[in-house]
């Protein structure tokens, strides 16, 4: 086996040196009746060539822009196809990054620690918050952690979740809080705008720990965070703003500046491939007053005895390895390498690149929406401003539209009936900077001719 350095002869020599006859003696602690008498029933071992061929063949059974049936996709909804600079893969392929462990030994982990510090700093800049952690699993679990944190901070046990929060994020929150004694209520979205119906905030009482909103919301619409924050703070509750499309932060007002108390979400848009939904990179940022309640790891700046600056993991007394059942979260392993990807992306795109990419998203989505709204029978479902996603109302059931688009090699967005059964004719479309005008026009033509 090529991943095992010692040959059979070397292993035999080592055993002899230890006064052992065979390797089975080393397993004598396992009762004999529990020891397998035959090999596992698994395929392999495959040669490198055979393994490559197998994975090539199954990868080719997936349809993407460049594999399988080669289709253009207008899917978004929490996973976004953005341009990825080549150097991200170059840098994360350095073994010093991807084959290293969690930086518990700072003297030989300064690379990883400084990257985390830079990641935290960039997330703070983008969100307008004071303190960000080293990452969480993804946007959905980050949202659940935010709800749990709000309960700890406010000692209240009821949360209000916007009805236009990503449905899968909502489902993950449901799972996390079900056994934690936290009750949840849903705040309706406005029928016409698709944005949170602000009137529902007025009906909330002072037993609410937090209001959770998403902006851009699941329908792509941009929420007026500042107005919502004012209502929420009057209740003494925290405002949690979820950002599932990180790219929007390149253009939209930082939630922290608009009054958010916790900003969490998904950094996948920052250089992380779609990869069928994972691995991604959750982020989590809070106001300074809550820094000791934050879940997950934090890197901080300090000095050695000679006064040289360096970084360490810090405020560890919040964490499970010290506090056990009283920890702020059970998280240990996070998304380290993917936080590095996001950091490299944000450095490479930088101040002007992120802005330019974000503007291209807004421009192209706006162009696509204008074109589609001119097609007979089609309209834009919600009236509010949007970033790079919007909902179209089709003249017939969405699945029929999708079937006809498929023949034109177009994956025409997400049918909303998947999550909102009443929305039978609605499709959620996403247009990023990777979609060309020619492709948008092809979609428009295909919709026009689908009747």
């Amino acid at each position, binding site marked *: 086996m090529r991943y095992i350095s010692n040959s059979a002869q070397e292993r035999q020599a080592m055993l002899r040196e230890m006064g052992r006859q065979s390797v089975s003696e080393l397993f004598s602690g396992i009762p004999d009746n529990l020891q397998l008498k035959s090999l596992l029933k698994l395929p392999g071992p495959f040669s490198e060539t055979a393994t490559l061929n197998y994975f090539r063949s199954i990868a080719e059974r997936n349809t993407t822009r460049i594999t399988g049936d080669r289709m253009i996709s207008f899917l978004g909804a929490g996973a976004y196809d953005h341009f990825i600079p080549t150097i991200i893969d170059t840098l994360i392929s350095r073994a010093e990054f991807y084959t290293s462990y969690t930086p518990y030994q700072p003297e030989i982990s300064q690379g990883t620690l*400084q990257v985390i510090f830079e990641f935290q700093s960039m997330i703070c800049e983008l969100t307008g918050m004071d303190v960000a952690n080293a990452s969480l699993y993804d946007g959905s679990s980050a949202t659940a952690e935010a709800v749990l944190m709000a309960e700890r901070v406010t000692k209240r046990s009821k949360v209000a979740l916007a009805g236009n929060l990503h449905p899968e*994020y909502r489902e993950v929150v449901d799972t996390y809080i079900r056994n934690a004694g936290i009750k949840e209520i849903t705040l309706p979205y406005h029928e016409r705008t698709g944005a949170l119906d602000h009137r529902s905030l007025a009906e909330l009482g002072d037993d609410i720990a937090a209001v959770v909103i998403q902006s851009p919301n699941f329908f792509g619409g941009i929420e007026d965070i500042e107005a919502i924050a004012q209502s929420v703070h009057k209740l003494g509750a925290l405002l949690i703003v979820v950002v599932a499309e990180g790219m929007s932060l390149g253009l939209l007002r930082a939630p922290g500046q608009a009054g958010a108390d916790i900003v969490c979400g998904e950094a996948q848009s920052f250089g992380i491939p779609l990869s069928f939904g994972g691995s991604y990179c959750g982020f989590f940022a809070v106001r300074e007053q809550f820094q000791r309640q934050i879940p997950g790891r934090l890197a901080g700046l300090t000095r050695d005895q000679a006064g040289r600056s360096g970084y360490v993991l810090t405020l560890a007394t919040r964490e499970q390895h010290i506090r056990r059942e009283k920890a702020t979260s059970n998280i240990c392993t996070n998304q380290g390498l993917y936080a590095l990807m996001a950091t490299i992306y944000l450095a490479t795109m930088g101040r002007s690149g992120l802005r330019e990419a974000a503007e291209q998203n807004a421009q192209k989505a706006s162009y696509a929406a204008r074109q589609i709204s001119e097609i007979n029978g089609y309209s834009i479902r919600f009236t509010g401003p949007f970033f790079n996603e919007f909902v179209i109302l089709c003249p017939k059931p969405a699945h029929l539209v999708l079937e006809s688009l498929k023949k034109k090699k177009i994956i025409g967005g997400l049918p909303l009936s998947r999550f909102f059964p009443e929305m039978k004719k609605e499709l959620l479309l996403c247009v990023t900077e990777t979609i060309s005008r020619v492709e948008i026009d092809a979609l428009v033509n295909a919709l026009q001719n689908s009747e």
Partner: protein
Amino acid sequence: MIRKASTHINQNEGTIFEHSRPGRTGYSLPDLDVEAIPIPSIIDPKLLRDDDLAGLPEVSEVDVIRHYTRLSTWNYAVDLGMYPLGSCTMKYNPKLNERVARFDGFSASHPYTPDALAQGNLELIRELEAALAEITGLEAVSLQPAAGAQGEMAGLMVIRKCLETRGDARRIVLIPDSAHGTNPASAAICGYQVKTIKSDSHGAIDIDNLRQIASKDVAALMLTNPSTLGMFEENIEEICRIVHDAGGFVYMDGANMNALVGVTRPGDMGVDVIHLNLHKTFSTPHGGGGPGAGPIAVTAELAPFLPYPRVIEEINERGEQVLRLDFNRPQSIGRVRAFCGNFSVLIRALCYILTLGPTGLREATETAVLNANYLAHHLKEEYEIAIAGKPMHEVIFSDKRQQKFDVHTLDIAKRLIDYGFHPMTIYFPLVVAGAMMIEPTESEGREELDLFIDAMRSIAQEIREHPELVKSAPHNTRIGRLDEAAAARKPVLRWKRQ
């Protein structure tokens, strides 16, 4: 003693923000190919940023490459040498795994791609589930949990849901004092009260004690096997029987599965749920702290409660056998994560399993256990073995013999860095004072093991002759021991412009 001059830039790299120079760029985007309209005409200006993203750096591509390449050189890595972190299984990360995970058909695949256009992904999920079910001897597997701790949480929720379905709400989860901290933290999220159980003098679960406390209120026993002391629970069948007789379930933390794969199976022992750390046992890279993946395997009885969606097989309208994501799981605990888990990690793990096959998996386990025993054999003269017994894939020493020189585990760990090794896991498990937990894995060849033995022996000698040298280690690193207390007292957690 060596003193570093620390003058070259690659030893004093500032943050990326300090490299920023107005007007520098490191990216290229195609020109906008639709008519640009003023953004404020489509989005209300009060919703737009007004800080012009001033906090992000302005750097060239060369700046980015140099900066992060320099930072990378300050890390230790498996590809540089042995990384003997006990309970972390820092084995070699095969390069073939990295290559296949980057295939376009996987990396460019959107999670909401219609099932018919994502058959490759679904097949991969099904294949890996089947392989992990066979390896664990259990019935059904969910690949959704993103890491071990999330697997623990999901697994305990599955148990809780099953008990609730029976109308048998229970409040307590039993966890040995030697357990990883995530175990009690995960139990707490599931609304359980944690009752810590004491290990016996061999680090094993005290059967008589267990009999007394395995009440009708115990939902589950969470145990690690081999324990965090590196030893197999010889009474595992009896332990499972006691818990089952009391109506509870047995949850096994699979962090130490590298000692067992192909040799014995948790399902055969009576375990009901196990999580696996694919970033330990199944060779996917740790990435400086993630991503990992923490699939759970469960018995047939618990399968209906697994997170949804599940991949199922069905016949389509054209009579072909196809795979589909099934969301109709009325008894499921729900989701623990959006989409289908850390899919890119799953690809790597299946690649590893197919590359090794059943023979290679067994060979890996045997070699991992052999390597750990080889280290134990050659180091026991110099260091105190924490608990007598039959170590498996890892061995735990204490600093008992070094304390009389006022040298402690932390000092030994730091001195090991000067010898070119990453330190072992220290001060864990908590039940061993001054624990040094060493797990070489199967990846290490004999020369590397011998170098490690030499280093540890040499440190033992230094402790006797020049303890100050060890107490002030490391000496060969860019920076010395950092003031962690100061970092926590006045946290500086982000860069700010002066």
